[in-house]
């Protein structure tokens, strides 16, 4: 048992106040209202009548906003997918998806600088990319072009200096909960390597916070049980413990 076994996993870094790590509360409303009115309207119109909207402009606005708002990032993927599908069905084109991905690619390429400049923005970039990976599918498969970039981001978060930063650790475990299983299906070798890093971090890095250790232990166990938690494990990590 960890010395800090009584520490409960709270929604550290997340907006909601549940005792659980929220698996991306699928509440579209929060994502909508986070946007400014103009973008909100554009989005709604784009879903109803894609032809009338400047989709390139919309995709830029969505990405821009995602960099500033972490809670938005989580469900943004679902909203984006709604636009992608509407465009595909009603106009047989994919302007929105293409622009969204290319814009995202720019953010991805610049991630090192972004991280140095703003930890929050970096975390938003990762969250948003993972959200897109999670929601936007191509003929029922995840976007192949995003697999390695997502891994690259997660590897970045698993570096020793990033493990010292709770904001990044939180992002790492949340994303692994969301897309870990899918990611592993597309490339299991890289997932193995990622988890070696996490295991090493957990075992060898002495200066990790106890919360970080708990989060790492949970994700290690989560994956080991096939991307799920047994009931006992769930109770261990997520129940309220009386002081």
């Amino acid at each position, binding site marked *: 048992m960890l010395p800090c076994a009584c520490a409960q996993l709270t929604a550290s870094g997340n907006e909601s106040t549940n005792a659980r790590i929220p698996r991306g509360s699928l509440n579209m409303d929060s994502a909508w209202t986070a946007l400014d009115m103009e973008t909100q309207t554009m989005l709604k119109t784009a879903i109803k009548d894609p032809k009338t909207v400047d989709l390139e402009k919309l995709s830029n606005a969505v990405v821009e906003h995602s960099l500033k708002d972490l809670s938005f990032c989580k469900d943004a993927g679902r909203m984006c997918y709604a636009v992608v599908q509407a465009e595909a069905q009603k106009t047989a084109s994919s*302007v929105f998806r293409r*622009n969204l991905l290319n814009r995202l690619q720019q953010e991805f*390429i610049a991630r090192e600088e972004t991280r140095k400049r703003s930890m929050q923005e970096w975390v938003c970039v990762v969250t948003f990319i993972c959200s897109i990976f999670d929601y936007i599918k191509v003929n029922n498969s995840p976007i192949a072009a995003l697999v390695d970039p997502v891994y690259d981001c997660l590897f970045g978060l698993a570096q020793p200096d990033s493990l010292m930063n709770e904001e990044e650790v939180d992002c790492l475990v949340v994303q692994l909960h969301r897309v870990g299983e899918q990611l592993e299906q597309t490339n299991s070798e890289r997932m193995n390597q990622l988890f070696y890093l996490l295991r090493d971090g957990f075992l060898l890095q002495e200066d990790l916070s106890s919360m970080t250790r708990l989060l790492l232990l949970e994700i290690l166990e989560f994956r080991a049980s096939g991307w799920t938690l047994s009931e006992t494990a769930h109770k261990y990590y997520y129940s309220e413990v009386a002081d």
Partner: protein
Amino acid sequence: MSEQQKYKYENDYKSSEDRNKGASRWSQCRKRGADGILRKSHADEEPGKDQRCSKRSESFTTPESEGPVSRIKNWGDEVEEQEMRTNVRRDFHRYRRRILASDFPQRDRKISSGSSDSRDSRDSKESPAKGDIETDETTLIRRQKQINYGKNTLAYDRYIKEVPKHLRQPGVHPKTPNKFKKYSRRSWDQQIKLWRVKLHAWDPPAEEGSDFQQIEEIDLGEIMDFELDVETTENTESQCSSSNGAAQSLQEDAFMETPKKMMKIEDSDMS
């Protein structure tokens, strides 16, 4: 490239004073410095690499770079290719099932729309499933792109609304060429051409804005008929097949795309 020279260039790269040698992060790949002098270290590099080099990020020059992630292609293109590929594969499996099913006496099964119409399965005696299906993915994808250009037109939309499949008469009504049948390159391209031209019968009626476009298109159509391999347009717009929101320009672009794209493929595909 000697170690010293490499170090020198990396130094120059970092210093901002020596502009002629190219202090910008992209210039390491360039053949000549700004002063026009050929760099020794890159004398053996093809000039064509410049373009690709300029897209590479700083990390490329260091051994510990993150890896070859999306250096040349952008994600937008990659996802479209993935979609095209998976669509073609799915069509292929459907088609094969249909062909195989038609070998059995279950003719009254309703055959859904897809890459070929029901008549093809009846023709299966002439083209038995095993040997005569086009399976080369590159070919199938190229053919699908050509079909997509045609289907992305207003004319096609109007056509399918006006004439349901069961009312179509051969010869009178245009029929989408079956990409899974074995055809020579020229034969296929000609079929596409004829199909596109036939579809024009369903072009939207000439309105104020579309008059100009209508005339242009008809002219090009006639040129296409008479001169097979001549460049019909000097337009160098990009090859992207998607719309820019305006349906009319979509039609024009789509129409003008095909000959260019076919021409381009003819040039590059020597097989």
